[in-house]
């Protein structure tokens, strides 16, 4: 095996996690494995006894599981959407974060789909979806769009990963059996590079409408019924906005963690957090706008069935959840992110943590209150999630983090070749580009 003397240069630090594992890693791994095991145990109980072990009842037929489903699918918008959009607008600061974002997407989609499977009364009959599909059902649209999105995202993750795998094949010093076949014989030739650039560009364009469709379709699961405060035309865009919002927040948290753990301060700099923080701020304002519009319209329409749900959220049983959501999704993030002084790494991470909590509550506040206020008279309706639901939720988060950590152990979480490309070529390219914007500039002579 050839070994060049520090051929990666400063990027050596990016493959160090692949070569070494700290004891801290193992400690965290142990905790996550435990939570994962707990959730498996909980699921076995549920398979054995049925959904009676959850807190769901009549008429609150959906609860934590569907909330998780929407939440996880929402987070998936982070990666691919951010990475694709930033690539398309040629924002150079994207280079260190695209990989981290794309991995989130690919992994979290499994947990989104997994949440639905958790929620099914007969998971053993899942294949009926293929045998007897009903194409009028938004859930089936979901199945299709999530499948397509997963495929596209996987491709979109894999393509820019190829050059890095090649680097690992040549420099990692282990797991050549894995990297060699996955590298697909990448040699870094001009022809290969051009092919790759084109493929990535095509995927970047394709992935955006697919991603938008995914969460739109998820929202339509609710909006296509006639239930009060579900049947709303705003749901499609509202959910997409919310998804991007929570996605960016998750990305910021992921970035902060890997920055700390793998000493990536040089690659994930305050400017990255600042820029993402600004995006987060914009999404927060956008989210607030949609929420306000939705609630104001409902209030003015004053239809009794809708008002019942409205008041249950604003002043009634779900008021604590609703107002916590407003504080954590809007007030706190805007306060932190609107001022440059607080829009630091720590600041954005704090804001993102609040946003994630708030967005989970937002999903809950969409699913449960409508179901808790049926149109016809009902007795006492209370939904208390049980330990099974909470264990499975915790297990899902833990397993997601576990898989993410696993990825960082196998592949570089910051795209090495793109950073190198940036270092070598971008400055010049950007200068050329800016010249074309300014009046009286000469055409590029490259």
């Amino acid at each position, binding site marked *: 095996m050839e070994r060049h003397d520090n051929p990666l240069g400063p990027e050596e630090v990016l493959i160090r996690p692949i070569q070494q594992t700290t004891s801290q890693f193992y400690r965290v791994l142990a905790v996550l494995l435990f939570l994962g095991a707990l959730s498996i145990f909980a699921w076995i109980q549920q398979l054995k*006894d*049925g*959904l*009676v072990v959850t807190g*769901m*009842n*009549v*008429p*609150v*037929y*959906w609860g934590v599981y569907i909330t998780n489903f929407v939440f996880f699918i929402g987070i998936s918008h982070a990666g691919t959407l951010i990475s694709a959009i930033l690539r398309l607008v040629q924002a150079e600061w994207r280079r260190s974060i695209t990989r981290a974002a794309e991995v989130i997407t690919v992994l979290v989609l499994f947990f989104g789909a997994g949440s*639905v499977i958790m*929620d*099914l*009364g*007969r*998971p053993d*009959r*899942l294949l*009926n*979806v293929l*045998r*007897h*599909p*009903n194409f*009028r*059902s*938004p*859930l*089936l649209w979901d*199945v299709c769009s999530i499948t397509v999105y997963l495929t596209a995202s996987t491709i979109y993750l894999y393509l820019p990963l190829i050059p890095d795998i090649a680097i690992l094949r040549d420099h990692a010093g282990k797991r050549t059996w894995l990297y060699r076949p996955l590298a697909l014989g990448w040699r870094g030739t001009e022809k290969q590079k051009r092919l790759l650039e084109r493929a990535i560009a095509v995927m970047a364009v394709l992935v955006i409408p697919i991603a938008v469709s995914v969460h739109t379709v998820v929202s339509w*699961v609710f909006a*296509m*019924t*006639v*239930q009060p405060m579900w049947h709303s035309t705003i749901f499609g865009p509202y959910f997409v906005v919310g998804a991007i919002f929570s996605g960016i927040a998750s990305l910021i948290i992921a970035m902060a963690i890997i920055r700390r753990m793998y000493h990536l301060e040089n690659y994930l700099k305050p400017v990255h957090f600042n820029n993402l923080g600004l995006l987060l701020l914009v999404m927060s304002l956008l989210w607030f706008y949609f929420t306000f519009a939705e609630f104001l319209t409902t209030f003015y329409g004053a239809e009794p069935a809708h008002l019942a749900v409205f008041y249950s959220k604003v002043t009634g049983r779900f008021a604590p959840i609703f107002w916590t959501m407003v504080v954590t999704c809007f007030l706190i993030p805007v306060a932190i992110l609107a001022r440059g002084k607080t829009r630091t790494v720590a600041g954005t991470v704090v804001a993102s943590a609040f946003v994630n909590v708030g967005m989970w509550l937002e999903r809950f506040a969409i699913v449960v209150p409508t*179901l808790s206020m*049926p*149109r*016809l*008279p*009902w*007795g*006492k*309706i*209370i939904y208390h999630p049980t330990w099974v639901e909470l264990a499975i939720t915790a297990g899902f988060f833990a397993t997601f983090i576990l898989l993410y950590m696993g990825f960082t152990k196998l592949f570089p979480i910051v795209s090495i070749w793109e950073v190198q490309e940036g270092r070598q070529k971008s400055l010049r390219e950007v200068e050329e580009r800016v010249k074309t914007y300014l009046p009286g500039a000469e055409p590029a002579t490259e």
Partner: protein
Amino acid sequence: MPRWGMVIDLAKCSGCQACVVACAAENNVPCAEPDEAGRGRALTWIKVVPFVEGEFPHVKVRLLPLPCLHCDTPPCIKVCPVDATNITPEGIVRQIFSRCIGCRYCTNACPYTVRVFNWRKPEWPGEMDTAHNPDVSLRPKGVVEKCTFCHHRLQKAKEEARAQNRPLAEGDYVPACVETCPTQAMYFGDLDDPMSKVSELSRSPRVFRLLEELGTHPKVLYLAEGEWSGKT
């Protein structure tokens, strides 16, 4: 092609809930354990819904029997991902228990909340399963169920009529709830047969449809209570 519908005369209904028990007995509906019932998981295919209004002493309690309304444009069948619920040509919204994956989308789509779900494996302690009706399949856990207008009785009535070489007559096919009603407040039949009782009643000025504004076109019609107009 008959279009099966029901008319419930609220003036005659006594709120006794015989329909609820008859349905459960006919359709092998399991009884939820008391604690489960307290947590809102009672399984009933038909239930009596109260509407309490007014101030003392002018209090009004209205009792409304609510089966599945077998809407002509049901919001529930659109959303089932596996086509486990659909509408037959004769208008019965049917449930295919062996296909249902238990996602409960249909239960959430129904604006009347008439669908129920088997949260656990139905159990009949001791020998209580001896009284099971052989015409109705037993549902496993994890599956949605609801009122079927006693569809199995339609099959049997059709077979009998065929065996006797005659068409289906009014009164041959009657769901268990209608059959047992002590005040005879429930009527059932072919809404499209102008000579049938339900068809005649469907044209009564007292008729109203629940949540009509949602456009579900329910085939269970109610006759409003009305009032006394004698001599004072």
